[in-house]
């Protein structure tokens, strides 16, 4: 499977937080050949199962097999119509849309039919001095679909969604830029892993979950984790890529491999295993120290039901939450390989290794 065409497909698909149907359908078709079962969670997450062989190596159904959950979110940020004024649309954000990048952006308004639009605002020539240097506040942003007011009122209603229109571009060095790489890049990585695992025997049941509404509060992860009730989980998300203005401490170089999270959100034994697999398979990785909330699905999954040992693998991207999210295709491939190798090598009794030390010093 080629990673760049896959990234293009996923990046350009629509799937605003809360309304992920188009990208879910795309994924359903894409994952179909690689998994045994698929279902939809109650909030719309796509939950796919690739069955393992269990401890005895056979596909015996009686033996309960341990469950691994992979989570990558398929929702993206966007806008929503909050009012129609003289043919112009007032908007609010869905998820953490960064308003600094909205001016002059081309969008698609999903009204009665899809309408091309532009994010409009008043020209600097007519603005008072102070306003010219300020980021436009939400109540001064409008979307213009270029139609007469009466027609707009027929076609567009409060609550209609607006997605960003952006085709993926290929930059040098197999880097690509587009919208929604957060987190479609990781959905792509999971897809690559599933492809690599086709025909490979693995002991654990693998639940690949494309979660919904991560951008508005990890909601898909919270509910899907409860539904799947995994014994182990690895979340896949994006992290900050190095570029001017972003502190060294917070960012990772592009093209030098994914980052593995360490900190309270992650089980140390699982982290150790991921590092080990990376080393054996010569996949370069970085360590990402996260002292608290990881800002990813891992945060929600770890505290599901009685607790789930969780890990996080991140792809560095530049310009997060902007329609030019840039990453290195090699990093996505590496995550795919890391996941496949991790899953293939996961022994049926791996959970025993996760037990916390209860011996007392001196014993």
């Amino acid at each position: 499977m080629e990673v760049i065409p896959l990234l293009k497909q996923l990046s350009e698909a629509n799937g605003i937080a809360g309304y992920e149907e188009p990208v879910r359908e795309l994924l359903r078709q894409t994952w179909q050949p690689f998994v045994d079962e698929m279902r939809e969670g109650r909030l719309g997450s796509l939950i796919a199962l690739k069955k393992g062989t269990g401890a005895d190596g056979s596909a015996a159904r009686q033996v309960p097999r341990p469950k691994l959950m992979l989570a990558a979110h398929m929702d993206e940020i966007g806008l929503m119509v909050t009012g129609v004024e003289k043919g112009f649309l007032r908007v609010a954000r869905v998820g953490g849309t960064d308003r600094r990048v909205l001016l002059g952006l081309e969008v698609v308004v999903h009204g009665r039919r899809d309408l091309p639009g532009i994010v409009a605002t008043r020209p600097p020539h007519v603005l008072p001095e102070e306003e010219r240097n300020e980021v436009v506040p939400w109540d001064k942003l409008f979307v213009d679909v270029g139609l007469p007011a009466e027609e707009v009122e027929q076609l567009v209603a409060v609550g209609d969604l607006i997605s960003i229109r952006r085709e993926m571009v290929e930059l040098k060095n197999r880097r690509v830029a587009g919208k929604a790489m957060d987190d479609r890049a990781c959905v792509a990585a999971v897809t690559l892993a599933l492809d690599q695992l086709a025909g490979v025997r693995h002991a654990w049941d693998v639940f690949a979950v494309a979660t919904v509404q991560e951008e508005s509060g990890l909601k898909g992860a919270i509910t899907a984790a409860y539904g799947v009730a995994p014994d182990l989980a690895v979340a896949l998300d994006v992290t900050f890529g190095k570029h001017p203005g972003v502190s060294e401490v917070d960012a990772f170089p592009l093209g030098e491999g994914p980052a593995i999270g360490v900190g309270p959100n992650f089980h140390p034994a699982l982290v150790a295993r991921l590092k080990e697999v990376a080393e054996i398979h010569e996949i370069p990785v970085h360590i990402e120290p996260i002292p608290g909330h990881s800002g990813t699905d891992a945060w929600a999954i770890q505290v599901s039901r009685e607790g789930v040992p969780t890990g996080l693998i991140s792809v560095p991207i530049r310009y997060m939450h902007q329609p030019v999210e840039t990453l290195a295709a090699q990093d996505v491939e590496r995550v795919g390989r890391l996941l496949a190798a991790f899953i293939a090598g996961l022994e049926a009794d791996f959970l025993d290794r996760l037990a916390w030390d209860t011996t007392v010093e001196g014993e």
Partner: protein
Amino acid sequence: MILKALLLKALSEAVGVSGDEGSVRAVVIEAVREHVDELKVDALGNVLVFKRGTDEPSASPESGGQRLRVMLDAHMDEIGLMVVGHDSDGFLRVRAVGGIDPRLLPGTLLQVGPERIPGVIGVKPIHLLEEGEGQKVPQLKDLVVDIGAASKDEASKLAPLGTYAAFATQFREIGPTVSGKAFDDRAGCAVLVELLKGDRFGFDLHAAFTVQEEVGLRGARVAAYAIAPDCAFALEGTIADDIPKDKDASPTTALGKGPAITVMDRSFIADRRLVRLLTDTARELKIPYQFKQPGIGGTDAGALHLARQGVPSVTVAVPCRYIHSPVALLSMDDFENTVQLMRQALSRITWRTLRRN
């Protein structure tokens, strides 16, 4: 030093920043293992213990033929720092784990990593400050930890990315008070250990020494889900701000006035029936008690009360001055009274306590 202060000393000096509670876990397990019927460590590292009750399972309609299940909770983790980078000169860059007040960091002593490497945080000397610079509080992102390393390489080897650092404070006895680090919540852990060491209660006692309270009540959430208790008590060390102020205002809690009961904080509202149980018990047995100033802080009860169908909960705490700093102070009388109040109130709890009128 008396036995109780020894236990508190061992707990206070153990190092266990959120996510790295192993050393505290070891002290706790050692202290309670002979006093409980079952002990296990769950997926997040919580220590869950069970002490069977002596009551005949009740025949009352509320109980469904079961013994009452009471959960007691105290968290093992403390606030600290995590290494997130290394300077070319060998300094460590750090981020906070839990809520750290940056005003307290200049001049602090730390213990870094599993080897407890000593480290210090210092700032630009006063002699070299520019106009106005002395008024500003240095932010954590501008501070570095010095372990004496001479190069970036040496620093990365001694304290790799993700290494935890905690305050380095020795426990001391100062007459009726004791000082040390992490009384939030090693004081609560000590109270819980004392309760487990005592006689059985009528009800089934489930105790959780939890992890990661300081980063979001994480351990308590999964522990309460697993235990599914009928009611829960969180045991804490809490703010005592009874130092002189300009205005006649609340001290939040005061040293010497007894255990502090939470009616409401930012994480939950206490169940009034449990509050009444505590205050009725205290008044009857003349145990001093106080109400913590409502609306301040949050505790594990914030997570406990949300488990499954809901769990009536309350928090009881030992007042501690400077609880947010490397050195806190508490009164052993308050500690004793907290254990006493809890023991007596728990011995009075029945299904009737949870009845609604």
